[in-house]
């Protein structure tokens, strides 16, 4: 109960911030009701998806300070569980998604135990390694369609299908992911004020001191990693129903892992709003860049060149991301 009250309590943010948040929330709620292009809608949905990915990553990567570059494997687990269950056994989203989460979380415990014996760079590289291995495995596993992937054909589902999450119009997808988005925010808000949240921040500060305060550092990291995994796998499941066509190369590649970590780091790892800000900047940038420039065959890759430049600038100037910059300007610090 206390956890719930904590989750709903945003009072440690300054008034102005909360006004901005309220306005933004309102905007998000009414956006689809105004005339918009399908491209804009798709971008918004992407924004919401990546915000949630980023928020999840942020728990272990931001608050915990363990830079995880292998989250894509859990996107895959979530996506594939839902897709396989739907295609083979016609199991609705609301059952396959929790199952996918459970599988992903179990796997994260299995990996987490050895992974968290490592720190810093070594940890980061190990996460890349594990994600690549899993992706390679999926690419040859026929049960999940190997490299061709799986396709969910919506031909049979014309009226909006809330059970299986198959819709013809994007607006339904939008509101569902928006719901998850708000839930995600509440969860992270509660998390950062919970016992685990505090312990994690102490760990990030100085692991030896944290241990001397009775914190089982290894276990705390593993638990948080599992939470991050749950977030990521949830959106992965959604992704399967939304895109309806998944293959290892676009759900489980390093590229996805990079993007997820990037959203959070750019916006401000270790803060509640950071990942959302990061997604709000990067997703539209990415989409519109691709639209305008990428279409010219000679300029493929320029969007990522800009990404790379942005990352380099951020890391050299303000590693705490946009949120960190804002806090520096305001002369205060809040997480």
């Amino acid at each position, binding site marked *: 109960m206390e956890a719930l009250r904590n989750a709903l309590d945003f009072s440690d943010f300054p008034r102005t911030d909360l006004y901005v948040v309220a306005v933004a929330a309102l905007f998000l709620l009414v956006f689809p009701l105004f005339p918009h292009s399908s491209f804009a809608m798709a971008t918004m949905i992407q924004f919401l998806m990546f915000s949630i990915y980023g928020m999840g990553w942020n728990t272990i990567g931001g608050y915990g300070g363990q830079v995880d570059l292998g989250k894509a494997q859990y996107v895959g687990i979530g996506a594939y569980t839902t897709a396989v269950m739907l295609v083979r056994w016609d199991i609705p989203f609301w059952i396959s998604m929790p199952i996918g989460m459970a599988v992903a979380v179990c796997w994260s415990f299995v990996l987490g135990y050895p992974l968290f014996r490592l720190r810093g760079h070594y940890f980061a590289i190990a996460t890349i390694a594990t994600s690549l291995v899993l992706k390679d495995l999926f690419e040859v596993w026929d049960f999940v369609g190997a490299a061709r992937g799986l396709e969910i054909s919506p031909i049979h589902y014309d009226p909006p299908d809330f059970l299986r999450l198959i819709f013809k119009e994007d607006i339904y997808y939008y509101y569902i992911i928006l719901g998850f988005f708000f839930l995600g925010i509440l969860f992270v808000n509660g998390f950062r004020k919970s*016992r685990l949240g*505090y312990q994690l*921040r102490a760990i990030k*500060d*100085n692991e030896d001191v944290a241990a*001397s*305060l009775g914190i089982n550092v290894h276990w705390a990291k593993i638990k948080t990693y599992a939470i991050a995994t749950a977030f990521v796998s949830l959106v992965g499941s959604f992704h399967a129903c939304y895109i309806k066509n998944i293959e290892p190369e676009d759900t489980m590649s390093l590229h996805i892992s990079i993007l997820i970590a990037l959203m959070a780091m750019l916006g401000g790892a270790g803060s509640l709003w950071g990942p959302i800000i990061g997604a709000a900047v990067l997703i539209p940038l990415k989409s519109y860049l691709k639209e305008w420039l990428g279409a010219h065959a000679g300029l493929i890759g320029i969007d990522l060149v800009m990404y790379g430049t942005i990352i380099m600038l951020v890391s050299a100037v303000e590693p705490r991301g946009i949120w960190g910059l804002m806090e520096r300007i305001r002369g205060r610090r809040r997480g």
Partner: protein
Amino acid sequence: MALLKVERLVKDFDGLRANDHISFQVETGELVGIIGPNGAGKTTLFNCISGHYPVTSGRIIFDGKDITGLKAFEVARMGLARTFQVYAASGDLTVLENIMVGCFLRTRSPRSARIRAKEIARLLYLEEVSDSLVSELPVALQKRVSLGTALGTEPKLLLLDEVAAGLNPAEIDEMMTLIQRIHHNFDITVLLIEHVMKLVMNISQRVIVLDSGRKIAEGDPRSIAHDPNVIRAYLGERYARFLPKGESSGP
């Protein structure tokens, strides 16, 4: 029964013997100081006791249980807390949040942790800075915060590692009062490492002296101050000849 018993503790680092068969005891309720020249192995000793370093040989018995080889967090959970000498706080925790982390050992509820932490902050005169970031505070206050954090874990035994380092005389006096208050009011046994003689000699009931990894003397502060072995350890052999005749022993 002794709260802490260290039996023939040996700690080697790849050929360097940092702790050489050290044995001593601390009774419940005592306030014991450990002194010795730099490099004597004092912090290493603490690290072994608190579980941060694995022990080469010997035993550590705390509260009747053998804690040799236990991990740091397990030792802390049993009621043995410590502060650190060098603590580079880079993070974004405020004073209150820091202390709360300590309190979270004994409670799961953030609200109780906060209440308890506020209490500790008040007792250590940290109320005014409770919402400041630890990394932005002056050294003296930082030391008090680490004291508060350790207190949050409700320890039976508190290991203090050079809490007076870097403090000016007024701050040292303050620290002395605080330690004594903690020792008395909270009923916590205290074992402290110190270089600042004023502090350790004034508040310790008993003093242990280490030099080059070995225990060379143990006793009440006054006799320690006159012990020729101790003087020799600090000032070197050359000054031993300034001791009154008949007091220097050995070659």
